[in-house]
Structures are given as C-alpha cells and as structure tokens.
C-alpha cells in the first residue's frame, strides 16, 4: 500500500509497450465477454422496459417503451415474492446445515486421527460429479411413494407433500454440494502452516481445541466464500424443483424465482420475465454483498 504512489507515477510516464499485442490478446476475451455477458444483460434490461400494445383481439403486437411498468408488476406479483420467501426460508435452513456438514467433514479429513483419508475425500466428493438433474431424478425415485425401494416408508410418510417437498429438495441439494464445499474448506485447511499446530500442541491443546480455536477461525474466509456461493445457488434454484414437478403436484409453476421466470417467459411474457430476472439478479447481488459486509465487520471485531 505504501509503495503505490511511486510506481504509478512511473507507469504513467513510460508509454505502454506492445499496445497492439495487448489488443490482439485481449480482443477474443473482450468480444466473447461482450457477446455472451454484457449483451444479454443489456438485452434483458432493455426488454424489461418494454410493454406490448395492439389493436383488437387479434391485433399485431407492438413492443413500445413502457418505463418501469414491468417492475411495478413484479413488485405487485404475489407469487414471485412468495417464491423468493420460499427460497429464503430454504437458504436460512439448508445453507448452515450443508456448510456445517462440510466443515465437520473437512475437519475430520484434516485430523491426524482419521485413516483412509483419500478414500473418504473421494467418497464425499463423488455426488458433486453426478449432474444435478440426474441427482434430482434419482432422489425423485427414492422419494416416490410407490416406486421407491423404501416404499414401505415413503408411502406412509409422503416426502413429496406440499409441507415436506421443500426439505426433500434441500436434502438433494445438500447431498450434491456438501462434498464440493468440503473440498474448498479442506484445501484451505491444507494450506495452513503446520508450525501453528505444533505450537498449539506444545501449549497442551488437544485436537478438538485446535479445531475449534485455531482451524475454524483461520479457514473462515473459505467458509464465507462457500456461504456466498451457496446463497447465490439457493436464489437460483431451478433444476431440482423443476425435475420434481414430474414426481409430485406439490411443486407449483412459481415454486422458485427462476421457475417463475421460466413460466412467465413461456406465456410468452418476455418483458415481465426479463424484469423478474433483473430484480432477482439485484436481490442476489444485494444479499451476497450484505452477507459479505456482515461477516467482514464481524471478522474485524
């Protein structure tokens, strides 16, 4: 931080060499970034500002600028906000449970007392290698009241009922992602210098104390990272509930915000769907940002 001013001035004086080379190497990225990132986002924002006008019952639709009309409709859309509330509830319960599991598994793998680490590391991670849709189909069959190998249980206790289906989906998501999050936390643990643990042991700390007082605080940044990924993933839930729609009537066409967007675009009411997407993206951004600020402030204290 202290050295920044001098080199910056220097850099400004010396002209940038290889301008053309830089341009050539940057161009592919810039073009793709613009075509597949900036343009679609800009397009969605533009689309969200349009409304349809027509004459008569079969008049030709004309899209005209409608200002924030679609956004007003989004904020009045009860089903959309119910879906946001649903995934928020989902996230409040599922994310801590999943990250708790991931942390415990990572600490166990890192503990010198456990044997067969390579096997367990792979075993925990394997579900993540299963594509999300396949995982959802598999669990759908396991939950099914009639086709499940555990039908004796599932026919008596309906895991796909309106009250339970959200948590059945949470179980699938946890199953898929716990190993992935574990791996991130575990690699953070591996990066810690071993001297700290030697010192702790010399001071008489046992493994549990080391885990609670040293390892967890030191890997906090990794846990925060996985939490943010999980929050974003939760708000964007689509595949699992969409697959479950073919197993149960409890998953509505507006079950999660993304399904609501998908349903609205199928009407087709593309402008409203675009406005929903923009609101959802902003909400995701704000929630991630708030979470980050919150944890940073805690870390500073």
């Amino acid at each position: 931080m202290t050295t920044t001013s001098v080199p910056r001035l220097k850099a400004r004086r010396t002209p940038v060499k290889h301008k053309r080379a830089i341009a050539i190497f940057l161009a592919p990225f810039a073009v793709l970034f613009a075509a597949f990132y900036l343009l679609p986002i800009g397009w969605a924002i533009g689309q969200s500002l349009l409304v349809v006008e027509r004459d008569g019952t079969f008049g030709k639709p004309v899209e005209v600028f409608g200002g924030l009309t679609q956004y007003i409709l989004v904020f009045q859309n009860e089903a959309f906000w119910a879906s946001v509330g649903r995934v928020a509830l989902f996230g409040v319960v599922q994310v801590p449970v999943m990250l708790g599991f991931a942390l415990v598994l990572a600490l166990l793998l890192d503990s010198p007392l456990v044997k067969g680490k390579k096997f367990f590391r792979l075993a925990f991670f394997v579900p993540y290698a299963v594509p999300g849709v396949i995982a959802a189909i598999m669990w759908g069959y396991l939950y099914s009241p009639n086709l499940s190998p555990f039908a004796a249980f599932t026919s008596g206790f309906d895991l796909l009922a309106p009250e339970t289906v959200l948590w059945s989906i949470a179980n699938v998501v946890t199953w898929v992602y716990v190993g992935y999050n574990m791996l991130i936390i575990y690699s953070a643990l591996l990066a810690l210098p071993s001297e700290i643990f030697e010192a702790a042991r010399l001071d008489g700390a046992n493994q549990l104390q080391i885990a609670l007082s040293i390892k967890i605080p030191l890997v906090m940044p990794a846990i925060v990272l996985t939490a943010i990924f999980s929050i974003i993933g939760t708000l964007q839930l689509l595949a699992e509930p969409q697959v479950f729609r073919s197993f149960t009537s409890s998953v509505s066409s507006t079950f999660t915000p993304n399904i609501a967007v998908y349903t609205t675009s199928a009407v087709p009411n593309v402008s409203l769907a675009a406005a929903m997407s923009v609101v959802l993206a902003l909400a995701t951004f704000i929630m991630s940002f708030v979470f980050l600020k919150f944890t940073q402030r805690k870390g500073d204290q």
Partner: protein
Amino acid sequence: MHIKNSKRIVALGVLAAISLTGCAAGGSGGSASGDAAACAPSDGKVDLTYTSWIPGIDKVVDIWNKENPDVQVTVQTGPNGNGGTYKNFFNQLSAGNAPDLGQIEYDALPNFRVQDGLTNIASCKNVTESKDDFIDWTWNQVTFGEKDSVYAIPQDTGPMAMYYRKDLFEKAGIPVPTTWDEYAAAAKTIRSQGGYITNFPQNDVNWFAGLVWQADGRWFSNEGDKWDVTLTSPESEKVADYWQGLISTDLVSKVPAWTDEWNNAYNTGSDWTWISAVWGANSISSGAPDTSGNWAVAPMPQWKAGENKAGNWGGSSTAVLKGSKHPYEAAQFALWLNTSDEALTALNKEANLYPATKAGLKLPVLSEGVDFYGGQKIYDTFATAANETNSDFVWGPTMTQTYGDVADGFGEVLGGSGTLTDALKTGQKKTIDALDAAAIPVNK
C-alpha cells in the same frame, strides 16, 4: 499489419454485436398479419423444415420426400407443445428463424395468432377449397370463424371416451358406468377393493377442459372486439364440484399423469379407467404393456342418462409459421399430410392419430379391431364421439398461462388445501391479468 488486424477484430466484434441486435429487432417487426398474402409457388428445389412431436412422424414424412424430390421436408422432433416446443417456437419466431411448419394444438392456435406467429394460407392453392373435407369444428378452430382466414390445416382430433379394465370390472361385478353418477358409485366399489377408478391429473388442465366441453361449458368467447373469460361458468363449476367430491373422499388417486409412477399404476392394475382421447390408446398400450387384451373402450359417462355428449381433448393442426419463405409448398405439404389416405393411414399406424377429415374416419385401418383392447373395434366408439362433440368451443389467447395457473391451483387441491372451484377462480383472475398484460382487450 498488426494495427489493421486488431482493428479488423474489433470491427468483427462490433459487426457481430450489430447483427445480433439486428436479428432480434427484425424478429419483432415482420410483415403485417391478417390479410391473406399472395401465395405463389417458389422456383427450383425447396427445402422445408417441420417441427412436430408425433412419434414416428419422420417415417410419414419420408413417404412425401420420396414422392416429391423438389420439395424436401426435414423433420425436427421436440417435446410436446406445452412441454417446451411452443416456447421454442415463440423464441424462434422472435429471432426470425422459426421452422416453415409446426405442429400446434388447437388450444394454442389463438396464442400463436396473438403473437403474430402464423401465416394466413387462405390464398394458397386448394386450401380454402378443402373446408368441406374437415370435421366442422376443426375448421372453425383453424379459421377462428373468419372468412378469408386459414391459419393452419387440421391434423387430428381427440374425441374422448372411457378406457376401462374390462376384466377387472367383470370380476368385481361392476356394470360399466354410463353416467357420471354411476362412475362415482363404481369409484366407491373399486376403492373398497383397494384400487382407484382413475387419477386426477394436476397438469392435464386441457383434459379438464375436455370434460367442461362435454358439459356444454365454454372457457372463452371472442364475440366482437373483446374476449370473455368464463372459467367459472356454471358448467365448469359443475365439473369441478364433481371431481372435488371424488378427490375429497379419496376415490381418485393423486399420481401425476405421464410419469413412470402413473404408467405403473395402470400396468399393475391399481388404476381401472381413464377418461381420455382417442390418441390415449397409444399411451396405455405403451405404458401398461402387461395389461394387453384386458382393456375396452366405452362412451364417456353422461351428465344425464340417455344423453350422448362427448368432449374433446387435444388434437393438433399443422401451421405455416411466420417467416416461412415457401408458404405455397408448406401449405401443399400440410394438406397432403392431413388429407391423403397414405399419410393418414401412416399417422394412425405410427401414433394412433385420429384424422380430422370426414373421409379419414372411414379409413380401413380405423375399422379394424385392436388386439390390445381385446380385438374391440375401438375407433367406432371414437367416431361416434367425434360427431357428438360441441363445435362452439373456443380457446383463449394465453392457454399456456391459463393451464399453468389452473394447474397450480389443482396442485394445491391435491395437496389438501382449497377446492377445484377456487383453482378455476384464480385461473380466471390470472388469465384476465395476463390478457391485460399482453394488451389484449378483455371484459373484466
């Protein structure tokens, strides 16, 4: 050189961006709808694309391709309409690269017309003249009852009847129900023996509409300059109350239709009947192969004893989508596909499609007994039903949305809260909102 190259790359990028925006902008424009444009043959060899979800459609199109070397049709298959193909069509239409021809069910035609997705082929050779070949109500669906308008060629219909497990009914000594009251009574007996008379399919709202159709109800009308939405008409609520009674007393199962679980319910004999359309014959025989020979077909139960009324569930048309460069050839192919004996016979053989033409009902293949149904000549029952179908039923312009919202309500009922009538009320309100959002005039 380097400078030139990098500039060229940037220029390419800009061009790409412009052409992307250009495409999409072109899609939302397009030529005026309504008037039947002149329909002239194209010069030289023509390649057409056709998207459909009929099983085995490629084999039927092969017949055409062999006979017409100058007009070659490429088939693309997709999921059924509401399952994804309509969404693809809408996206392709706004991108300006829709296929020349598309399979569109009658209930979705108004939606496509409202989105300016159909070509009026009334002036194409032989199209308007073929009016009398088709069953009257199907022609109403593709012309919207207007003169000088033909937006699609009717393909098949879905007259409804009752598929039932003849063996199980006989064994249990239950008479085949002819009225809905008898059907409910049979449901009780079957339930006491551990089975279900049928399932209530949450997502088949068009099936429910077929039942309303049978009861002489209407969900939409477009008299003049505004739409009327009548999902909550007395006829509609009568049907809803009836099925609500069966659901509340656990006389129908809640298994979602078109799933493995549903097939399993038929295959293992836990579901005994299915009120369904003629094309459903294929669904049962492929989904429940172990029950071959045990099924039979009877007319739909009636609301009043002695009446003869049938509903209709589904049925498609072949539409020439907006943007096709060869409407003449496309229209000729659509006519061949849906009126010629060879195509209709092949369509019936591949997919049990039931022709929308009057002559088609007399095809030899439709007077044969079907082994799966114990050798019964099941198509006789459906031919009768086809003639008992009310021809005034009108579909709304946002059926995908209407189906979705009503299905959500039905789902809540199956989950134990609300009633089917509540679901119709919500569907009514949301449909009016959706029409409003699309700037389609509607009576509130």
